[in-house]
């Protein structure tokens, strides 16, 4: 375990999307699996609908909690513009897991700036990008707040260190009992979507 290389996961999204809980779940999973883990996020003003990031690093020994630029094995984008903003964090041989979802920032609402039209194409220039219809899936299931469970499901397909049961255990302890069953289903849908895509070579 001590010599295991460190895996870096960078989450980017908008304040209020639930990014902290999503990254807490991944960090706890790694902690329970016996890894050294560090997790970092910035609180404060960023909670008011601004850009929010959170980072999880786990492996044999982790020094800094902050991922170096171009060194994230995974960039999980909860929102497309925010994924673009942090695209330079991902390794060229890493993977971007992207929620197909736009939240217009104030300058775009005011007509002072354009929301980028080709987010997925631009991201693909940085690393292999898997576009996940997490927002749509969650909407279909009746609650857009489950989009993060879909995304975590997709991420889980690329993390062989943790079994589906490990995920279920941590999700069960961190989500409200009333919403758990639906969230677990959302997680499964995301996991299946990513596995199917990987089989078809879509995300390469």
């Amino acid at each position, binding site marked *: 375990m001590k010599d295991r290389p460190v895996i870096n996961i960078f989450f980017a999204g*908008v*304040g209020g999307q639930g990014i902290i809980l999503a990254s807490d779940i991944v*960090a*706890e999973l790694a*902690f*329970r699996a*016996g890894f*050294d*883990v*560090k*997790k*970092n*996020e*910035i*609180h*404060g*003003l*960023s*909670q*008011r*609908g*601004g*850009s929010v990031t959170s980072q999880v690093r786990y492996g044999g020994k*982790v*020094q*800094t*909690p*902050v991922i*170096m*630029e*171009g*060194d994230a094995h995974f960039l999980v984008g909860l929102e497309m*513009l*925010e994924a*673009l*903003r942090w*695209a*330079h*964090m*991902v*390794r*060229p041989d890493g993977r971007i897991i992207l929620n197909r979802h736009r939240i*217009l*920032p*104030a*300058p*775009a*609402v*005011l*007509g002072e*700036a*354009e*929301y*980028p039209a080709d987010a997925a194409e*631009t991201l693909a*220039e*940085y690393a292999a990008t898997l576009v996940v219809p997490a927002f749509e899936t969650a909407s279909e299931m009746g609650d*857009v707040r489950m989009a993060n469970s879909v995304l975590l499901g997709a991420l889980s397909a690329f993390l062989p260190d943790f079994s589906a049961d490990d995920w279920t255990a941590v999700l069960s*302890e*961190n989500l409200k009992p009333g919403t758990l069953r639906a969230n677990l289903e959302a997680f499964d849908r995301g996991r299946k979507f990513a596995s199917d895509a990987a089989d078809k070579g879509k995300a390469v």
Partner: protein
Amino acid sequence: MTEATENMSDKRKGLMFLSGNEAVARGAWEAGVKVATSYPGTPATEILEALGGYPEVDCEWSVNEKVALEVAAGASMAGVRALASMKQVGVNVAADPLFSTAYTGVNGGLVIVTADEPGLHSSQNEQDNRYYAKAAEIPMLEPTDSQECLEFVKIAFDISEQYDIPVFVRLTTRICHSKSVVRPGKRFEPTRKQYVKQARKFSMVPSNAVQRHFDLERRLTRLEALANTFEHNAHEMRSLEVGVVTSGISYRNVREALPDFSVCKIAMTWPFPGQFVRNFASQVKKLYVVEENMPFLEEEIAALGIPVEGKQQLLRVGELSATTLRRRILHVSPGQKGPVEGLPPRPPQFCPGCSHRGIFYMLGKKKFVVSGDIGCYGLASLPPYNAMDSLICMGASITMAHGFNKVSDPNDRAVAVIGDSTFVHSGLTGIANLVYNGGVTAVIVLDNGVTAMTGHQPNPASTWKLGGKPGDMPKPTLDIEAVCRAMGVEDVTVVDAYDMAAVDRAIEGRKSSGRPAVIIVRGPCTMVDRRRRGAYMVSGDCVRCRTCFKLGCPAISVEEDAVAILEFLCTGCGICAQVCPKKAIRKACDSFPDKGKAAAGEDESPADKVK
């Protein structure tokens, strides 16, 4: 600690996964701390919140940092261990007791946690509080992860009692808000030290103080010897070509970015362990210092006559990430393209339903000079509100406006805007000064009954205390309206934050009335009071004049070129409906499950009242 954390500890043989702030709290608890005080401030807030979970500790949100430190110093004098935690600028407020408690020393251990903010993620400056340790002549420890946070707080209490001095523990944002694996211990229950009257030690009249200053210098000499042999300072010898002196989070970034370099890790930053660093320097060919913000260690090393490089390569501004160190010291760029260029920014905005929105819309529209203060409402400085001219420190809204208005024409006078928590922290003195000195300033108090920006901590204008919940008390302990009247403000008025016509009437004229006035704009924080009043929608009468965009509401957006209200974000505050010149924004009653109630007036919004 919380239940969740205890559960987790079972799963990994007694280990915990804690933030630096939680680990500080755990360490203080293990050290037997009895009294803990703080005023909320990012990134320090969660220390007291975590301590509030330990029943053995008497915790309080004090009204400001000076008060917090004095309360802790009093508990220390009475013979128990006490801790005061605060953000970096909070130490400015607490500086008065800080310098003199160094003279008096302690009875029970006294630890002060300063949480500094390189990178100013949520602060007005990047001040480097290591200089406070040097200026006040008290020792300072700097942990590099959560495990050291826990250990160093315990050590700090021991040093405090052994050397009769308050001890600083300095964190930075990345230490405070990073979680890492921690091995906790058990609580030590110190016996309460007896309080013996010692006026010559605790009463700093000049004749006593000068003797205590001599004593402080003797204590410092002993502490310097401790620093040079401190077991957590370390020489980590690798390549002898370059050695790096570093501390705190910079140590972790150096280890990440420069893994082959020898490192001199400084855990006790003050008194500076000069001999320890000199021994390290003599073993390496070239000596670097890596430290965020000011060249504190570098100056101490240079003063010893040791050649050293630091700020020639590294900026004083912002954080020093591992990426930055690789770029500036190894001249290695990341193996990835740079950031995508030309992306629209995503500035934070007032939350949907925020009770600050209406007043700042109005102040911006009237183009008043607005003397601002510290809180969520600092966002009013930014577009689209553009309704705050200045913001420097807690309480300065009232006093700066008073100064500004001494020389302004009546029509150009500034109004002061201050939140309830900031008002209690440092606004009361400004009101007393304003009235006593014949000022003419109108002060707008934004009363949402909570310290919102730091995560909704209570204050004397709230209806609960640490560990409680909103509504625990029938009314706040501090009545802002009554306090202002008692201090001599004759013109005190209260308005509903969501009633735009009333807000307009309240501020119109008072700016130039020629006497002090207080306008309390009252409305709950929408993150605390989660009641929703039914979403609004945009009707076909919309002419796309964009007036509602000036409210900067996240719930107001555009969908297929039409103005739209995002139902899942809209709280039904009704401010947009009141500013719409075409009355095109209306309640979406059909989508509101409680429409019966609304119709019965129980959930009536001010927008309906205006009509």
